[in-house]
């Protein structure tokens, strides 16, 4: 890689931090030593580098002395990196020509027990900083132009709700639904927990709002054909059924996937399940309840006894779906309550593993118990057996609630409480968008807490239960959270991103494709330049992690701010010999009690009690005649304030011994 022009006029500021650094590190000597370096134009000590007065002085120095690089040796960059970048910027210096050197957290404090050596280390750290800044490059933020429109795939509640927010925030939205009608699983559905609103009514409400928002275009019977382009400028081709051959193309700044789930369909024979039998799925049952009026009957026979079997197809430690489907317990119990409220004299048996009516829905569980429902518990290893007779179904269960007594009941109907499974077309969507699929076959976000609605593909987002089972509120919430993220990136024409990205040295690159393979963000692609195939980086997509760099056999990749010159410069800087004149006596000056001059009475007793030999807490408690819990509380506080420390554990590995800090064993 081409040797860059090294910086010639570097300013170095070494902070006292009011003694936090200078009590252990000889900052004056370091200033003088560093000041002699050829490319250092200014070398100063400052009482508090972060103080406003010093910031002003730095700006003055940068401008008057035409500094081309700045090193601040003070506290951790986590505290003031941005402060000093701001200083550089205000002075007209590129903020990336500034290096923060951590001589507090990683030097004076970490080595306050060896102040003589702390100075040597600080010298190394500062010289490394000087070398790093001398090889630093002026960088500018990456600008991404973004189209202010979003394609939302899937017009269930989540997709519809997100589209409404996105449109209200001023974005164009194209909402694509595979089915002929919008609404997803809620289309045509009856009452849902916990509000008893009808599914279809929820759909109608949202559709009503969508019609009022001209920024939303809804396509039904439509599928995503192809997705091209990238971050900020996707092109989404949509095929609408019934209009043969017609593929429409839409620009999109971002894509939101809200394709939802499917209900699990039990296998033939699973808990006696057969097509047309008296063992039906939850979904069928809900429809049946909703459409029946005066009485509940199935195939002409009144239904008086219902057995609900939970966790069908779910929570299978050895089977396909290992996960819990989250909302089915509540849905089943809610249905059971609906049945009681609508029809008289129905007996319900719930055959469950754990009832998971979490949160406020617990009161539904309580209510169904009050209504007389019977709950029987089975173990995964011993599932209930279901045998269909002509008009009844015989169910046997070993009930864990009654010492695994085998119970037998004849039900008019068995409802299999089935959960959510990924849609069978999800692989297709994943392929088109290049988004990953998790172990549970649902789409995978980057991180459930840090980036719960983002995928590794930049600006392709997830919402609702295509990510995993969710109830309505949770589904809608996640889609809305995605809307907020999307709006933040596309609301302006251009978005600025930090310039810490990978760069390819086209001369060195021989295109082996290894970098492309390891990049999880799809940021590396092939280009032809000067008749040669080489790698290239899609800057806005690159996260700057650097995973690609060590992989490259030609060493053709580096990361801005972390180039070979900068890192190796640092290593060299650490290793340079330093001639310091440090008094030998200046060591271990840390007070035993870290500056504390007075102690609570009980501390004094404990200290006295520990003055001769290490002891356990019960021994100290007996010695000073205080309750052992009080001694624990205080001793641990003393431990925190460096007055005592642990001195190993007793022979039974039960009680730690404690001694006064800095006291020989």
């Amino acid at each position, binding site marked *: 890689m081409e040797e860059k022009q090294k910086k010639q006029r570097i300013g170095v500021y070494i902070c006292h931090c009011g003694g936090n650094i200078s009590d252990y590190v000889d900052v004056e000597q370091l200033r003088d030593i560093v000041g002699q370096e050829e490319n250092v134009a200014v070398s100063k000590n400052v009482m508090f580098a972060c103080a406003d007065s010093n910031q002003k002085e730095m700006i003055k120095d940068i401008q008057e002395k035409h500094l081309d690089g700045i090193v601040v040796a003070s506290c951790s960059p986590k505290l003031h990196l941005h402060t000093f970048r701001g200083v550089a910027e205000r002075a007209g210096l590129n903020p990336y020509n500034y290096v923060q050197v951590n001589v507090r957290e990683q030097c004076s404090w970490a080595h306050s027990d060896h102040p003589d050596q702390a100075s040597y280390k600080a010298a190394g750290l500062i010289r490394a900083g000087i070398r790093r800044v001398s090889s630093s490059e002026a960088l500018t933020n990456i600008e991404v132009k973004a189209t202010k429109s979003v394609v939302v795939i899937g017009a269930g509640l989540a997709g519809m709700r997100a589209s409404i927010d996105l449109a209200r925030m001023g974005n164009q939205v194209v909402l694509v639904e595979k089915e002929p009608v919008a609404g997803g699983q809620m289309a045509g559905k009856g009452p849902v927990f916990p509000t008893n609103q009808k599914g279809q009514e929820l759909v109608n409400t949202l559709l009503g709002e969508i019609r009022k928002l001209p920024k939303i275009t809804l396509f039904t019977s439509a599928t995503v054909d192809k997705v091209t382009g990238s971050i900020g400028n996707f092109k989404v081709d949509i095929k609408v059924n019934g209009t043969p051959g017609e593929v429409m193309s839409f620009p999109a700044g971002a894509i939101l996937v809200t394709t939802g789930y499917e209900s699990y369909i039990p296998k033939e024979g699973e808990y006696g399940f057969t097509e047309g039998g008296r063992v039906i799925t939850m979904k069928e049952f809900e429809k049946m309840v909703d459409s029946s009026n005066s009485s509940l009957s199935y195939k002409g026979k009144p239904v008086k006894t219902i057995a609900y079997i939970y966790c069908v197809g779910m929570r299978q430690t050895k089977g396909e779906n290992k996960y819990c489907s989250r909302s089915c317990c509540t849905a089943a119990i809610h249905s059971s309550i609906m049945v009681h409220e609508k029809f008289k004299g129905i007996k319900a048996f719930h055959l469950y593993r754990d009832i998971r009516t979490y949160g406020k829905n617990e009161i539904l569980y309580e209510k169904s118990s009050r209504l007389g429902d019977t709950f029987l518990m089975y173990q995964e290893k011993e599932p209930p057996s279901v045998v269909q007779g002509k008009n009844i179904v015989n169910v046997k269960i070993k009930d864990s609630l009654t010492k695994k007594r085998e119970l037998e009941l004849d039900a008019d109907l068995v409802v299999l409480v089935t959960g959510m499974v990924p849609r069978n077309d999800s692989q297709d969507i994943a392929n088109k968008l290049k988004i990953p699929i998790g172990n549970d076959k649902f789409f995978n976000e980057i991180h459930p807490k840090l980036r719960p609605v983002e995928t590794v593909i930049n600006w392709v987002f997830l919402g609702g239960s295509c990510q995993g089972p969710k109830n309505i509120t949770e589904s809608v919430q996640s889609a809305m959270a995605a809307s907020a993220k999307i709006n933040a990136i596309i609301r302006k024409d251009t978005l600025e991103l930090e310039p810490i990205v990978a760069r390819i040295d086209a001369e060195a690159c021989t295109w082996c494709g290894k970098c492309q393979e390891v990049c*999880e963000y799809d940021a590396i692609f092939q280009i032809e330049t000067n008749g040669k195939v080489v790698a290239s980086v899609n800057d806005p997509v690159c996260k700057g992690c650097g995973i690609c760099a060590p992989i490259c056999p030609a060493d053709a990749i580096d990361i801005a701010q*972390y180039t070979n010159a900068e890192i190796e410069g640092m290593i060299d800087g650490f290793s340079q010999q330093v001639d310091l004149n440090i008094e030998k006596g200046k060591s271990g000056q840390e007070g035993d009690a870290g500056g504390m001059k007075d102690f609570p009475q009980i501390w004094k007793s404990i200290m006295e009690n520990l003055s001769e030999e290490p002891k356990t807490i019960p021994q100290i408690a007996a010695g000073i005649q205080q309750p052992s819990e009080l001694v624990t509380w205080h001793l641990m506080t003393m431990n925190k304030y*460096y007055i005592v420390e642990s001195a190993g554990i007793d022979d039974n590995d039960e009680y730690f011994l404690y001694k006064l800090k800095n006291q020989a064993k």
Partner: protein
Amino acid sequence: METKKSPRILVFSTDKISDPGIDQAGLRKIHYSPTVYTISLPCSSGIKPRWVMRAFEQGFDGVFIAADGHECSYSSRCPEFTNKIIEECQKQMTEKGISPKRIRMAAICSVCAEPFASHMANFTKILAELS
């Protein structure tokens, strides 16, 4: 501790997780050897073996990688990548007659002040025994 005998260790840390963890050691005055120097990077999977080799050339006795492990926010495969880098380094080290024990890795989280200090103590001991 004698200054001259104390092995010099180069630590590669990560900006978001392990470097803050090393800071915590300082904040809580948990001491480790003053011949430990740290370079912070975005991710431990970005460490180039040549940097490691440069450290040995420059007289470092050991290189320690304070990785994010499974907490890495860039890649779920980070531990795997980092491991590969270590393997590559060890290969080059062996070629140069440097003991592969002179490079080590551990996951250090943002509050792992004590674990970091004890890793440094152990590594210092190992390196002292090697020389």
